[in-house]
């Protein structure tokens, strides 16, 4: 085995140590906890940078050892890993720094910082792990941290219900992912190319994907891939497993920024990108389901986002929608090969930056408004909190892919690529991705600026909004750094694509297609400004319209899961099992009572159980001897 590359391990060990130190030291010095956690995350960032230069000069890192049986544990660092590790540690550091300000009043902040530190460790561990089983371990660890942090204010009934919902919904996806691993594991049995590799080792799978596909059959591998996609959908909150994210906004806003916007929810995208070769070499339905799931979710979440008033929930739906774009980009790999991954990953990075910015500026607003989250009661905040709202504005521009911002470079490439995808196949079902994604561009503008104009313009519509004030500039420094990223990351586009896939091709489309998203965006801006930049929206009333009701109720999906499946199916099912169990139990008791004549037996028992025991034993033994006798005669 090659010698261990320690900086690679340190990427996730550093926040793990940070977790322990933060908790222990934080118990006695609450104010140090944020600092320690931030330092630990800084350690990861430095380690990731070291690994970056190391991989540039020495190539891919792969260290692993036997964990149990033929399951190995270890780290695998290639270009994809580096991008993700750098992004996670950088964004996490920014959010940790802001959280020192955001959480400064909380009595349990050492627990908070310990948990976010543990989360960062889990996320980075997931990024560098070399085996799907270890990947799954960290995958569940981040899920656990998400559960704990959503329910961080455990005394709020909403928060603990949301935490429960998040855990169970993602668990559904996780277990489907597990089934995928089970099928892969059992179908690889007897594969001669396995050698000393673990059947679930990531480098083994992605380097031999073509041979594996011909060994296990493309459709079996495709089934595996679709099950992986189901796991990704649970974690990355894609349709129909997206229902947990909007509720998860009950947690602290920095948690929403870190876990439910920038990092953890992109873990599903990372999974698909990580084992992209499995998708690529298996039957075509695997990649097609990726692109269709992604683009449909992008459209769907955009529609639902139009009907929401809670500022954090609007951002949550936009996260779901943007992750749809990332998945769709990877799914386009059927035409672009590994280039699809580079498109998706670039959008992932730029989204992480501007979405963290959006959430944290929303968090700063919420502090000023005493956690009033309904945009209908905001208004006029640009005058009262100029710095924060400008930051929110920059984030919003990046989100709608305004030309020049990072979102423009990362998202419009994907939309153009989906047109090339259509041209390549020329069928109707290959047109859907472009249709969905381009319509998504309009919807993104609509819900984003509906939120922004209501927040920033007009007159304050509540007492709290009238008295809002900017925080001091110091806590906003991380936001300014992110804002620079949101505006300027676009310049890296070409070198980024080349870093992930040296042989990528930029999608080239006719001008009239290229400008479609921009025109839609402009239309969206005009509509929202007319309606929400003024006070017209206050006079609109759709409450009788069935379309409005459909959207307002999130297409009844939450209702389906909670009220139909959980309450009308699972609960009665469980109740009937319990009923059966109880009557079965009683029947057994009755049989026992009548045959043993309990009362009689009872008195003798109380005289001495041991005697009774021996009586039973003797009866038993004599039965045996009778049996033996009979046997002997036969």
């Amino acid at each position: 085995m090659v010698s261990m590359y320690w900086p690679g391990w340190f990427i996730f060990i550093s926040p793990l140590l940070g977790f322990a130190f933060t908790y222990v030291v934080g118990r006695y010095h609450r104010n140090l906890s944020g600092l320690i956690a931030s330092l630990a995350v800084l350690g990861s960032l430095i380690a990731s940078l070291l690994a970056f230069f190391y991989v540039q000069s020495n190539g891919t890192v792969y260290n692993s050892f036997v964990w149990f049986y033929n399951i190995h544990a270890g780290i695998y660092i290639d270009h994809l890993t580096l991008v993700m590790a750098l992004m996670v540690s950088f964004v996490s550091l920014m959010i940790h720094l802001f959280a020192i300000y955001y959480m400064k009043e909380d009595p349990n902040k050492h627990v908070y910082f310990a948990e976010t530190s543990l989360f960062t460790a889990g996320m980075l561990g997931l990024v560098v792990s070399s085996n799907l089983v270890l990947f799954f371990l960290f995958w569940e660890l981040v899920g656990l941290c998400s559960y704990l942090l959503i329910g961080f204010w455990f005394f709020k009934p909403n928060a603990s219900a949301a935490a429960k919902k998040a855990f169970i919904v993602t668990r559904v996806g996780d277990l489907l992912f597990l089934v995928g691993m089970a099928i892969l594991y059992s179908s690889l049995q007897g594969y001669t190319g396995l050698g000393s590799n673990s059947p679930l080792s990531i480098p083994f799978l992605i380097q031999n994907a073509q041979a594996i596909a011909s060994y296990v059959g493309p459709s079996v591998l495709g089934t595996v891939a679709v099950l992986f996609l189901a796991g990704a959908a649970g974690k990355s909150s894609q349709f129909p497993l997206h229902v947990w994210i909007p509720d998860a906004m009950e947690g602290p806003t920095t948690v929403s920024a870190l876990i439910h916007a920038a990092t953890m929810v992109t873990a599903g995208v990372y999974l698909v990108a990580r084992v992209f070769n499995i998708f690529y070499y298996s039957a075509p339905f695997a990649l097609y389901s990726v692109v269709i799931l992604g683009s449909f979710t992008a459209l769907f979440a955009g529609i639902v986002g139009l009907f929401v008033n809670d500022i954090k929930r609007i951002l949550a739906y936009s996260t779901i929608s943007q992750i749809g774009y990332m998945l769709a980009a990877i799914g386009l790999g059927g035409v672009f090969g590994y280039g699809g991954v580079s498109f998706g990953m670039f959008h992932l990075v730029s989204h992480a930056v501007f979405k963290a910015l959006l959430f944290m500026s929303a968090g700063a607003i919420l502090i000023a408004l005493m956690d009033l989250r309904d945009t209908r009661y905001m208004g006029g905040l640009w005058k009262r909190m100029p710095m924060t709202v400008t930051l929110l504005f920059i984030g919003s521009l990046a989100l709608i892919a305004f030309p020049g911002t990072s979102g423009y470079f990362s998202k419009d490439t994907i939309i153009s690529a989906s047109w090339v995808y259509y041209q390549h196949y020329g069928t109707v079902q290959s047109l859907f991705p472009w249709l969905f994604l381009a319509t998504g561009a309009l919807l993104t503008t609509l819900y984003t600026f509906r939120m922004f104009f209501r927040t920033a313009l007009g007159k304050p519509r509540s007492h709290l909004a009238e008295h809002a004030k900017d925080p001091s500039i110091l806590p906003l420094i991380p936001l300014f750094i992110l804002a620079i990223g949101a505006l300027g990351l676009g310049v890296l586009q070409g070198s980024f694509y080349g870093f992930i896939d040296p042989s990528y091709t930029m999608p080239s489309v006719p001008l009239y297609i290229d400008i479609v998203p921009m025109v839609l965006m402009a239309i969206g801006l005009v509509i929202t400004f007319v309606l929400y930049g003024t006070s017209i929206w206050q006079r609109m009333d759709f409450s009788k319209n069935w379309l409005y009701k459909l959207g307002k109720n999130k297409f009844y999906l939450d209702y389906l899961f909670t009220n139909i499946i959980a309450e009308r199916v699972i609960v009665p099912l469980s109740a009937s099992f319990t009923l059966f169990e109880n009557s079965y139990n009683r029947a057994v008791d009755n049989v026992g009572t009548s045959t043993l004549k309990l009362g009689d037996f009872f008195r003798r028992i109380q005289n001495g159980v041991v005697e009774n025991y021996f009586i039973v034993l003797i009866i038993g033994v004599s039965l045996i001897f009778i049996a033996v006798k009979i046997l002997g005669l036969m």
Partner: protein
Amino acid sequence: MLIIFLLTILGAAFSFAVKGRRREYAVYASGLFLALTLIYSLIRFHSGYTGGIISQETFNLASSIGIVFSTGVSGFSDTLIILSAIVIFLSVIITENGKYGESLYSYILITEVGLFGVLLSRDFLFFYIFWEVVLIPVYFIVAQYGGRNKDSVSLKFFVYTHIGSVFLLLAIFTVYTFHYEATGVFTFEMSQLMVNTYISKIPAFWMYFALFGFLLAFLVKMPSFPVHSWLPDTYDAAPYPGTVILAGGLSIMGGYGLFGILMPIYRSMGTGIMDLLMALGIISLIYFSLSAMMQQSLKRMMAFASAAAMGFVTLSFGAGLVESGYQASLELAGGMFQIVAHGLIMALIFSTLYYIHRSTGHDATHSLGGIFREAPILSSFLLAGLLASLGLPGLAGFIGEFSIVVGVFGAIGWFIMAVIFAMIITASYHIWAAQKSLYGPYNERLGAIRDADGPTTAKLMGMLIVIFVLGVVPNLIYGLLLTYAGGII
């Protein structure tokens, strides 16, 4: 090993002589046994174990009719011995002085003797005797210190498991008799009786009768649907230390019966029995999970959860033996690992529930509520136990469940979705229980409650650390189990 075993017998017998300070005596004695078994395992199993039985000793008592006392340890039974030593030690130290009568501690020590005896014996006569020895003290624990309905429940427990034992005895005598018919030698030695070449010579009816007897006895102990009725009542009525022993100690007996006794003759059992076992495993999983969901009392709910977790063990035994290659190894080792993990996790959960019950006086989800605010340490331990029980990675339960689920696809195909369904239900009611009892607004009717003090935290922490270490470094015992399984298949 034999010396340790004799010491436990002496220790248990001597405990009756100790007056007044019997709890302290039991703490020291069970602690000593734990230390001794650990030292023994380190010496004998640290390296160089190649499968099979080691440390064999044989004493002829009446060799003309084949009565010998023979002992030996395999990698599997050694891990179970350590497990039961840990569980017994835990059940002793969580009690407090004066809460229970002195005889409780003697009963616990006798249980330890019985468990060690079951795991050590390599001949059926003494195996059976110790199998019964375990029952008696547990019966007394429930009957004397139990809660509601303790009389009828303890009787039910006794009679129920005893029916299983009778069939075990019948099965033993069947194989004993036919061995005499075939070879003219009387023997109870497992090494003679549990051999494929011999078992397959028994006439079909009697062979299946014997197998039925063994399986019934083991499945009752497991417990598996539909022979589980004793379990929820007994777990519920037993005092908490008794529940810890039942869940952590006695539950291993069924699993040991399958993996330790029946596995060597799996070739004679045929796929029909394996299919039946797999079906029972899956049915148990779903049935117990769904029944657990509606339980009001956390103790009863966890009793069902424990039974569901053992469904995995039944499933893995059936599946592992019809598979081949690396899947089979993963499956079998996973099943055995699951027995160990389940014992540890349930011991942790019931110990924590004991402390919660002690400070609040309740163990129903609806009478608790929001206790995280007042008792964060106990709540965290309960949460950790629940998470371990639903198979969260990083904790011991995951390694077993992962191995079983991943390995099982080769045997049951898309029936795996039934297993997944049960796992989703399991996750739901665990999380639901945690949410209802630990989080949300505090139930003010509970008044001021006491959180865990230092020693309590240390005890539970020790348990959690064991679960955590096994979850992160499973190879501590996984390798042993794998070697043991590899020696047979």
